């Protein structure tokens, strides 16, 4: 077991290395001289050369990569070109809305999708099943922002039930305003996630329901509820949790769009602002940050398999 955990942790290193290399190369392909950008319009040629020397941009690429990697390992993601603040600071300032939106979305989606998928599997081929599958295909087909605007149009503009846009912090502005502002973004972001999870839940529960031990459980007179939750869902847990982990990538992409639609000052907005300002260190830092979060979550999920399913041993 310990050997497997160690192996699994070590195996994330090459993947993270590839991500780092990719992000580094991508940034170096940028047109224009970063030194000239930092120096500004009024800088002389000497200024540009001095800044280039300061930044070490005239060193060989390999040396630059190693130095950048060294900084990265110490938790230094670089400095924003425009605000001159460390990227890690900018990320930590914008982390709260994104983190909370992601959390509410995951909780909401799992709470809706797992029962939905289980019922669909239990009544395979029925009207409910087809409705769930139709919703699932629809969820994959509708663009996040169109859904967002439709929800705003319905709930905020036509019925005036919820605020149109914005974000309230539950820590400084109260839990109720936070909840009122987070409902629509959560629903928007959740639809594609629900589509993904309910489809996977349906498929894996359907497979488990054909097992012999389900028939045995029925034969000894266990209630259908217990069979579904205690036997079917429990045995279907591994693929469901796996797809939740893979879906995190989908969720991160959706966060960027959702924050833009609802004007939420989170990491997604930070990306877009950085793209508009061509502030490459921020783009680079956020790509690394999100990728590492994704790799880390999937690592944790992988290590949880043995608790979810005692048959899996290492």
């Amino acid at each position: 077991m310990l050997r497997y955990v160690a192996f699994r942790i070590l195996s994330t290193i090459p993947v993270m290395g590839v991500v780092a290399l990719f992000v580094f190369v991508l940034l170096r392909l940028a047109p224009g001289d970063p030194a000239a950008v930092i120096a500004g319009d009024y800088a002389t040629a000497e200024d540009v050369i001095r800044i280039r020397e300061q930044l070490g941009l005239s060193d060989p690429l390999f040396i630059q990569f190693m130095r950048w990697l060294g900084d990265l390992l110490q938790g230094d993601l670089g400095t924003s070109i425009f605000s001159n603040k460390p990227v890690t600071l900018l990320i930590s300032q914008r982390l709260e809305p994104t983190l909370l939106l992601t959390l509410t979305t995951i909780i909401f989606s799992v709470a809706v999708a797992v029962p939905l998928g289980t019922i669909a599997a239990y009544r395979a081929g029925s009207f409910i099943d087809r409705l769930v599958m139709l919703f699932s295909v629809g969820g994959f087909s509708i663009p996040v922002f169109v859904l967002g605007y439709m929800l705003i149009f319905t709930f905020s503009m036509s019925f005036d039930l919820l605020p149109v846009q914005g974000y309230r912090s539950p820590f400084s502005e109260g839990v109720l305003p936070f909840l009122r502002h987070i409902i629509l973004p959560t629903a928007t972001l959740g639809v594609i996630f629900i589509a993904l999870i309910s489809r996977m839940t349906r498929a894996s529960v359907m497979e488990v329901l054909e097992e012999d031990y389900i028939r045995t459980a029925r034969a000894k007179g266990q209630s259908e509820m217990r069979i579904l939750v205690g036997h079917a869902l429990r045995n279907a847990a591994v693929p469901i949790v796996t797809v939740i982990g893979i879906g995190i990538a989908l969720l991160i992409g959706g966060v960027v769009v959702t924050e833009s639609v609802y004007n939420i000052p989170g990491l997604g907005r930070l990306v877009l602002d950085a793209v508009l300002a061509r502030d490459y260190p921020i783009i680079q830092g956020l790509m690394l940050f999100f990728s590492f979060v994704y790799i880390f979550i999937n690592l944790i999920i992988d290590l949880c398999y043995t608790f979810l399913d005692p048959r899996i041993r290492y």
Partner: protein
Amino acid sequence: MTGAEGNQGQPGIAGLLISHRGVFWGGLVLIAIILLAVFGPLITADPVAINPMNRLKPPGIEGLFGTDMLGRDVFSRVLNGARVSLTVGTAVALISVLVGLTLGLIAGYVRALDAVIMRVMDGLMSIPAILLAIAMISLAGATLTTVVVAIVIPEIPRVVRLVRSVVLTVREEPYVEAAIASGTRTLQIMVRHILPNTIAPLIVQATYICGSAMLLEAILGFLGAGIPPEIPSWGNIMSEGRTFFQLTPWIIFFPGLALALTVLAVNFVGDGLRDTLDPRIARTM
């Protein structure tokens, strides 16, 4: 795998496909959208003609979908946008399948390169597609080509994984072992035995990629990182519609509806293809 064609009395693969409801309706909608995209712009108003006297008009007889903030005809812009979406969807599906197929065959067959290719794919897969695409476009500048490339790159790992898994399964089959034992050259084994087995799952995968590429293209356009505004695309029409959303929601709704309908049709066709061509995957999904 698809040996039904020759048998008389049994419907061929084409017959099976048409009798599938998803393929039939999805295909019908898709054909209609393609026809509208090809011939529509020939008869509608100029999509970039500015008419300030006629701005932000609601949908009516003059303009079926109304006009935008510059007085341009939204219906005509949506029809023109269909060309962009369909082009991007098709191009991304074709390119990512071709590149992914090549890399997947190499990874599945050449042990020495397998680990390297797959680690690179793992790394690529952990970077969220939207971020990767936004970063690449902001670096290279937004044109139709850069948008297609930026969407292709995050799609490649999925194809590589799929092809590799097929290769790994097929190469254990007795008939492949027999071919190896009888001294068939590697290239011939690939072309004669391995490649045909990848076709069905790849067609299915290509359909899904086409759908998700159209969505991603629209998202990029919506975020202002997609096709430049000179060419109307569903994404940038909706992006421009944001400013006046509370006043004129139709500028976002019509292209959004067109996009959702197109992707839905593509996904229906994809599900149908999966059920028909690839029963092995169909059972588990």
